[in-house]
C-alpha cells in the first residue's frame, strides 16, 4: 500500500514534469502541487481524467497579508491510493482573474462562482456568471471574504441582478416556489419552467440562509469555532463538529485516543441512523402514506430520546472536543443503546416491509427523479445520491477516519438512480449502521477519551471529512496566529448535490418534485453556511 502510494506520487510528479512549480508531500496523505494559472487547466485535466481523481473541494483564500496574493486550492481525492492532491495556484491582486474550468468540469461551477462572489476573483470563461452566494441585490464590488471587508458594515442594497432561465414561446409557466414555504422547510427559491404538470427546467436559487459563517470564524479561537461548526446545520451537527475537530487535529498533527475514535464512530452512526430512519419515514409524506410517516417518526423519536439519554442532547451537540470527545459512556449506556437498537431494528424492518410491498408507494418512487451515472460523475455527486446512481464512493471506506478502518461494513450501491434507489440505499445503510454499532461495542477499547492539543503553528493547514447521512462533508482549515482560524471553508454534501437535484427533476411532473427533493434530503443551511 505504502509502496503503491509512493509509486503513484512519483509517477504523477514525472508525468507533470515542467508544468508544475513545486511538488511537496505535506502530510502522509496529502500532496501539494503548485502551478501557474495558465497550467491549471492542464494539470487538473491530467489529475481528473488520467489519474481518476475526483474533485473533493476547492477553496479560495485571501492570503495577501502573508503570501502576497490570493490563493486557490483545488483538492482532488484519489480513493484507490487513499491520497489527496492539492493543486495550488496564486492570483495576485492586480490581476484578479483565474481561468475557469467550469465548462469542462461542471462540478466546479459553484465553487468558481463562490470565489467570484466572496473574493472578487473573476473566473474567465465561466459560462454562467450569475451571482450565487450573494444575491443580486448585493453590490457587485463588495466581497466579504477579502480581509479588508468590515463585518460590522451594512452593505447597501442595489437593483437586483437576479435572472432566471428564459423561455421561448408563450406556453411555459414559471412556477415560483419559495423562499417562503407552506411547511417548515428551509428557504430556497425554485422556479420551475413547466407546462401543465410537466417540468421542463428547474432553477434553484439558494443561499438565502448564507450567514457568513466562514467570515465570522476568521480570527476566532479554534475552541470556540468548534461550536460555530457544530451549528452550521441542525441535523448533521455532529458530522460538522467531527469534521472541524479532525481538521484541527490534522493541522496540529495529533492522533486522538483510540477510545475517542470509537466513540466518535458510535455517535456518527447514531446520527446517521436517526437521519436515515427519519428520511425513510418522511419520504412517505411525499405520497401521503400516513402510516409510513407516523411509524418513521415514532422510530426517529426513539433514537432522539436515546441520544438525549446518553449524550444529553437530542441532536448530539456538545459531544466532540478538539482532540477527542468530551465525555465517556459507561456500561449501562451500552445496554441502553443495544436494547433500543434491537427495538428499532424490528420496527424498521416492519416499516420497510410495508413500504416496499406497497404498490402505490413503490410506483410513486420508481422511475421518479432519475439521476444518471454520467450526471452524477460530471457533477461529483456524493453520498446516498451518488450510491443510488451507481457511483461507488463512500468516504468512510475510501479515506477512513475515526475507527471506520476497524469495523467492517458494506457500501450499498444501486444503479437505477431514482427515488426508490435512494431510499433503498438509506434502508441498507440503516442496517449497516446498526451492525457497525454492534461491532463497536464488541471492540471498544478502554482508555482516555481526549488528548490535549499541542500549540499549532500559524498558517498550518488541515482537512477533516466525514460521511454524514447526506454525503461527505469536508472542512478545510487554515490556522492563524494564536490558534485562531485564518480561513475556514466548509463544503457540505448538500453543496455538491444541489445542482444534481435540478438535473433530476426535468421530465418529471410537478407533484413529484417534493418526493424527489426529499429523496436527496439536502439541507440548505449546510449548503448556504
Amino acid at each position, binding site marked *: 500500500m505504502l509502496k503503491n502510494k509512493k509509486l503513484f506520487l512519483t509517477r504523477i510528479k514525472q508525468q507533470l514534469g515542467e508544468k508544475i512549480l513545486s511538488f511537496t508531500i505535506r502530510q502522509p496523505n496529502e500532496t501539494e502541487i503548485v502551478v501557474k494559472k495558465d497550467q491549471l487547466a492542464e494539470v487538473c485535466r491530467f489529475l481528473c481524467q488520467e489519474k481518476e481523481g475526483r474533485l473533493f473541494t476547492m477553496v479560495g483564500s485571501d492570503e495577501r497579508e502573508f503570501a502576497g496574493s490570493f490563493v486557490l486550492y483545488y483538492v482532488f481525492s484519489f480513493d484507490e491510493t487513499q491520497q489527496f492532491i492539492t493543486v495550488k495556484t496564486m492570483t495576485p491582486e492586480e490581476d484578479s482573474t483565474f481561468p475557469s474550468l467550469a465548462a469542462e468540469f461542471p462540478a466546479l461551477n459553484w465553487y468558481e462562482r463562490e470565489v467570484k462572489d466572496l473574493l472578487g476573483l473573476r473566473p474567465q470563461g465561466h459560462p454562467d456568471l450569475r451571482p450565487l452566494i450573494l444575491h443580486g441585490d448585493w453590490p457587485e464590488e463588495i466581497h466579504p471574504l477579502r480581509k479588508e471587508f468590515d463585518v460590522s458594515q451594512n452593505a447597501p442594497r442595489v437593483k437586483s441582478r437576479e435572472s432566471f432561465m428564459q423561455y421561448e414561446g*408563450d406556453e411555459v409557466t414559471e412556477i415560483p416556489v419559495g*423562499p417562503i414555504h407552506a411547511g417548515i422547510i428551509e428557504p430556497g427559491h425554485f422556479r420551475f419552467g413547466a407546462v*401543465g404538470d410537466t417540468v421542463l427546467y428547474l432553477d434553484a436559487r439558494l443561499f438565502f440562509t448564507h450567514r457568513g459563517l466562514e467570515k465570522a470564524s476568521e480570527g476566532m479561537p479554534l475552541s470556540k469555532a468548534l461550536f460555530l461548526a457544530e451549528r452550521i446545520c441542525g441535523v448533521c451537527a455532529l458530522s460538522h463538529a467531527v469534521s472541524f475537530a479532525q481538521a484541527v487535529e490534522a493541522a496540529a498533527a495529533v492522533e486522538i485516543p483510540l477510545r475517542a475514535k470509537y466513540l466518535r464512530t458510535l455517535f456518527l452512526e447514531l446520527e446517521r441512523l436517526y437521519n436515515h430512519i427519519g428520511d425513510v419515514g418522511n419520504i412517505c409524506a411525499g405520497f401521503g402514506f400516513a402510516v409510513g410517516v407516523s411509524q418513521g417518526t415514532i422510530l426517529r423519536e426513539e433514537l432522539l430520546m436515546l441520544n438525549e439519554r446518553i449524550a444529553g442532547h437530542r441532536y448530539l451537540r456538545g459531544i466532540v472536543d478538539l482532540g477527542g470527545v468530551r465525555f465517556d459512556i459507561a456500561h449501562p449506556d451500552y445496554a441502553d443503546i443495544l436494547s433500543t437498537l434491537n427495538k428499532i431494528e424490528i420496527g424498521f424492518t416492519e416499516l420497510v416491509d410495508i413500504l416496499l410491498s406497497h404498490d402505490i408507494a413503490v410506483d410513486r418512487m420508481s422511475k421518479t427523479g432519475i439521476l444518471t451515472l454520467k450526471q452524477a460523475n460530471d457533477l461529483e455527486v456524493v453520498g446516498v445520491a451518488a450510491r443510488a446512481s451507481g457511483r461507488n464512493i463512500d468516504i468512510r471506506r475510501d479515506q477512513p477516519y475515526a475507527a471506520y478502518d476497524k469495523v467492517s461494513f458494506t457500501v450499498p450501491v444501486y444503479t437505477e438512480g431514482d427515488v426508490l434507489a435512494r431510499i433503498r440505499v438509506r434502508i441498507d445503510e440503516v442496517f449497516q449502521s446498526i451492525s457497525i454499532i454492534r461491532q463497536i461495542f464488541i471492540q471498544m477499547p478502554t482508555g482516555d477519551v481526549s488528548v490535549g492539543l499541542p500549540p499549532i503553528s500559524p498558517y498550518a493547514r488541515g482537512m477533516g471529512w466525514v460521511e454524514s447521512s447526506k454525503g461527505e462533508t469536508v472542512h478545510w482549515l487554515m490556522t492563524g496566529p494564536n490558534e485562531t482560524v485564518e480561513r475556514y471553508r466548509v463544503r457540505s454534501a448538500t453543496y455538491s448535490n444541489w445542482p444534481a437535484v435540478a438535473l433530476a427533476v426535468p421530465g418529471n411532473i410537478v407533484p413529484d418534485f417534493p418526493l424527489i427533493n426529499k429523496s436527496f434530503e439536502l439541507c440548505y443551511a449546510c449548503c448556504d453556511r
Partner: protein
Amino acid sequence: MIEASLDKVFITTLSLFLFGTFAAAVSQKPRTANLIAHTASFLGGMTGAITALGVLLGQQTIFLSAWYIIADISLSFRIDALSAFFLLIICMLAVAVSIYSIGYVTEYYHKKNIGLLGGGLNLFLLSMVLVVTVDNGFAFLIAWELMSLVSFFLVMYEHERPGVRRAGYVYVVMTHIGTVFITLSFLALFLFTGSFSFTDFQAMSAQFPNWLKNLIFIMALIGFGTKAGIVPLHVWLPRAHPAAPSHISALMSAVMIKTAAYGLLRVSFDFLGGGPVWWGAIVLAAGALSAFIGILFGLAENDIKRFLAYSSAENMGIIFMGIGACLVFNASQQSLLAALALTAALYHILNHAMFKGTLFMGAGAVLFATHTRNINELGGLIKRMPYTAVLFLIGGLALSALPPFNGFISEWATFQSLLHLSFDIPNPWWKISGGLAAAALGITGAFAAGGIIKHFGTAFLAMPRSEHARGASEVPASMRAGMAILALFSLVLGVWPGFVLAITKNINEKMFHTHLSGDAIWYVPFAGQKTETLFPGIVLLTLLGILMLGALLLRFWAGKGKVHIDETWNCGTSLESSMQYTGTAYSHPVLRIMQRLTGTHKKVKVYQQYAYYPRKIGYHLYNDHSIEDAAYKPVVAFTVKVSQVIRMIQNGNLQSYLAYMVITLIMALLWIRQV
C-alpha cells in the same frame, strides 16, 4: 286573416333581407352601408321572428308560392312548425347579430368594403331563411348552395390575413362534398317520386323499398353531417369559423350548422317517416363521437374562436345524440319518449344558438379590443372589459350546461332520453349503450366546463400577459347589447322551459302524435309513464333564498367582514405575469391523459453552448389530432390538388370556378328533369 297577414310579414322579411343585400352593397360610405345593412337585417329578423312565433303558437302552416321555373320546379314556401322553429332561431340571431355588428364592423372602416360585408350578411341570412322555408327539393338545393357560397365569401372577407384562404378552401371543398351527397339523396328522391316537391316526397316515400330509404338516409346523413361538422367530417369547422369576421362566425356556428339538423330531421322524419333502429344507432354513435372528440380537440386549443368552433362540433354531437335517440324510440314505437328526445334535440338547437351566439360575439369583442385570439397573450380583461366578461361568462356557464342556464335543461333532457334508452328498451345492448352514451355526455359536459374555465380564466382573469391585453378597453354599447340579448335568453330559457315546450309542441304532435305538457311556467313535466320532472325554477328560487338568507345571517352573526387588499401570495417573491398558468398549461393534464386521442407531443429546444449550462429553452406543444391526420390529410390534399388543376385549366380565379360549379349543378338538375 292572421294567416294572410303572417304571409305578408314573411314576405316583408324576405324583402328586407333582399333590400339589405343590395342597398348595402351599392352604398359607398362605410357608415351608411353599416346603418342600412344592419337596420335591414334587424327589421328582417324581427319580422321573421314574428312570423315564426305566429306559426308555432298559432298552430298553422304558411304556404306561399312565388313563381314557377318549369313545371313543378318552383320557388314556393311552406312554413310548418319545424320550419318555423328554425326560422325563429335564425331570426333571433339575426336581431342580436345586427345590433352587435353596428359596433363590430367599425373595426373595418376604411380598411375593407363595409357594403359588401353588410350586404353579405343580409344575403347570408336570406339564404338560411330560404333553406328552412322552401318547399321544393330543387329550390332547397339552390338555397343550400347559395348559403354555402355566401358563407364562403364571408369567411374569405379578410383573405389577406394568413391562413384565411386556406381555411376558406378547406371549407368550400368540404361543404361541396357534403352538397354532393345531399344532391344525390334528393336526386334519389326525385327519381322515385318524379317530383321535387316536398309534399310529394312525404306522400310517396312510404312506398319506397327499404334499401332506397336506407340509401337516401345515409347520403343525407353524410351530406348534412358535413355541414353540421360531425366528427370526422368536422375538419372545415375549426378552420372556417375563426377565419370569418366574428359576427359571421356567430351566425355560422349558431345558425348555419343548425340547418343541417333541419335537413336531417326533414329527410329522416318528414320524408322517410323514421327508419329502423340502426339509423338511430348510427346517428347516436356519430353524435357521441362528435361530442367527445369535438370538445377534446377544443380543449387543446389556445385560440378562443377555434375552441368555440370545436365546441360547436361538440354541441352538434349532443343534438345528434338527441336525434339518434329519437330515431331509436320512433323505431321502437315509444312515441312519448321519441317526443322527449326530439324535444331535447330541438331545445339544444335553440340553446346552442343562444349561448354560442353570445360566446362568438364575446370572442369577437375580445378580438375587437385586443386584436388577438391567442389566450396566452391575454389576461386581466375582466377589469378592462367588465360587461363583456360577464356576458361571456354567462354564455360559458350555459355552454357548460350548468344550472340555472339553458344548456342544463336541454342537456338534462338529452340525459333523460339516453337513460330511457336503457330503462325502456328491452334489448340488452341498448341497456348498456344508453348508460355509456350518458357517460359520454357527462365527460363532454365536464370537458366543456374545463374549456370555458381555461379560456375565460386565461383571457379574462388575473394579469395581462402582453401589450394586447394591457391596452384593451370595453367595446361599444351596441356590441354589448347584441351579446346581452342572447345572454338574457340563455337565462330565461334556463328557468322557463315551459316556453320552449310550448313552441316545440306542434312539431311533436305532427311527428309523433303525442306531446309533452309544458304549459306551466316553472316546470317541465316529461309526464307520461314516468314522472321525470324538473322544476328548475323551484331549485333556482331555493338557491337564491339560501343565498340571501345565508348572507343576511352571516352579516347579522359575524358582522360586515373587513376585506384587506394585498398582493397575491407568491412564496415571498413578486408575482410576474409569466408565472400565471397559461392556456396550454391549463389543459395539459387532460391532454396528457388523453394523449392517444389528441396526439399531444412537445418540441423542446435547449439553447446551450456547454452541457449543463442551458441559456434558453424553447417549447411548443403540438396536437396531431390523429383522427384528422389519418382520415383527412390525403383526401384534402387530393381535392385541393384537383381544384388547383381545375383552376389552372380555367386560368381564372376561384370565384368563377365556383360560379361554374353552381351552374353545373343547376344544369345537371335540369337535365335530369328533362330525361
